[in-house]
């Protein structure tokens, strides 16, 4: 692996032990190296960004952290526990939430139903036979939690509308709310501003910053909107061709010559 152009000391994720630690993650697709010995640490409550050119391996890295892909090498630990071999749903219950690069909502379901289903999935209390017999009505507690999330995301006006009738910007908020319903300790956001206009992007960033400040979960953000990245995260990692080429404080990394050459250009 090439030496990072902006270096940081081990443990610079903060004095607290990291909530997430990825060590030497490697992944290949049909002989093509997608990730090569990628290391990352995220401290509890920390806002960290992951940037890089298209095809650098950012989404692949997300999928390895979540268990949607199995890396050929390396380990992932969450709060000191090795989760490398765990399936996706167990990692989600341990506290990793995510949103997707392209909106992945459940067509035909309302915003409220998205939140209710997520709450039941988080607890693992859903039973197919109850669904079939129509005995699976949401409890008062589940309703309250969903209502709180509707308020938190500001989706009151759309709460009982089918998600396919919503604009992309509102859809992104539904995804964010659904991820927050899992009560994540670490939230992975994959290009949340993609397809949003300037105003929607600013609204999403403000909402995210407010909710994060209140709930203090850690965030790992993949994003091409440099404005959003620099306003939200305090540390940055840069991937290029599956290798980390830089990491460190946001401003230093964005000012780094190698990062500008590989990713930013003449901004």
């Amino acid at each position, binding site marked *: 692996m090439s030496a990072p152009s902006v270096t940081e000391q081990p443990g610079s994720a903060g004095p607290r032990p990291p909530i997430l630690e990825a060590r030497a993650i490697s992944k290949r*697709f*049909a002989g*093509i190296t997608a990730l090569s010995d990628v290391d990352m640490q995220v401290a509890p409550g920390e806002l960290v960004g992951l940037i*890089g*050119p*298209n*095809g*650098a*391996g*950012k*989404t*692949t890295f997300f999928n390895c952290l979540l268990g949607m892909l199995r890396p050929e090498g390396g380990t992932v630990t969450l709060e000191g526990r090795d989760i490398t071999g765990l399936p996706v749903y167990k990692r989600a219950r341990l506290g990793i939430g995510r949103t997707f*690069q*392209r909106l992945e909502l459940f067509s035909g379901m309302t915003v409220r139903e998205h939140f209710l289903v997520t709450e039941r999935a988080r607890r693992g209390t859903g039973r197919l036979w109850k669904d079939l017999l129509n005995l699976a009505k949401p409890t008062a507690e589940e309703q309250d939690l969903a209502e709180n999330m509707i308020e938190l995301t500001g989706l009151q006006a759309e709460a009982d509308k089918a998600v396919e009738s919503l*604009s*992309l*910007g509102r859809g992104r908020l539904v995804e964010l709310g659904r991820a927050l319903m899992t009560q994540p300790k670490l939230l992975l956001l994959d*290009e949340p501003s*993609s*397809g*949003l*206009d*300037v*105003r*929607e*992007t*600013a609204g999403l960033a403000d909402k995210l910053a407010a909710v994060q400040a209140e709930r203090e979960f850690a965030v790992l953000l993949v994003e*091409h*909107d*440099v*404005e959003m990245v620099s*306003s939200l995260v305090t540390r940055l990692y840069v991937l290029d061709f599956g290798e980390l080429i830089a990491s460190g404080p946001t401003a230093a990394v964005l000012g780094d010559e190698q990062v500008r050459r*590989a*990713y*930013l*250009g*003449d*901004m």
Partner: protein
Amino acid sequence: MTAAAPPLLELQDVEASYGPFRSLFGVSFSIAEGGVTALLGGNGSGKTTVVRICSGLLHPIGGQIRYQGQDVTTQRAFRLARLGVVHAPEGRSVFSTLTVEENLTLTFRQCFGRREARAALARAYDLFPRLGERRRQLAGTLSGGEQRMLSLARVLVRAPSLLITDELSLGLAPLVIDEVYETLATIHASGTALLVVEQHVRQALSLADHVVVMGKGRVQLSGRTEELGDISERILPAIHGERASGNGRGAARA
């Protein structure tokens, strides 16, 4: 291009709907031969509906569309494509079970014939070197941004009469966006008129000689770029549906 030149494409009082939902209300503007028009506006303002109408993917319920002086209001998309209208749609449109090279070859043989297809392939790889590196990879296994490059490469190597691009920069890294816009400038220099739909306002305005701002299915503002002055005075407020200037964050990103 002078203002006196006859329009290449002209929309007159165009109305459109999706089922019971009206999406365009009396939209009129024209694109000059060899000109560059930036079509701007927030999400849901009707931009994509306008470009779908311009390329024949959607037929208006009212109004008229003329292309090179000919009424094409009810013309189907493939006929407009043969007349020289090329549409690079939003999002990724790739054949996921074919390789990168197969995706490109399929399009290029159709457009240029077997002989010219290899030269077109070379131009596509020159434009997006990453695609050259991944030529034997299945398109479905590419990253989101690479799939976007692949769908753009299929249209950007051509020089049609009118190239319509919908959110070119979506999902692309900043460096690649710069390169794509340089390519657009080259295509324009060869005589192609452009209709550019874009969220990155400054990027679009760097090319455009004419601006149309949409809001709630209507044209809110249109005119020659130099006549509209500084973008924060009239263009950004029109995009944001405001009377005052846009906020600092929006202006900065735009």
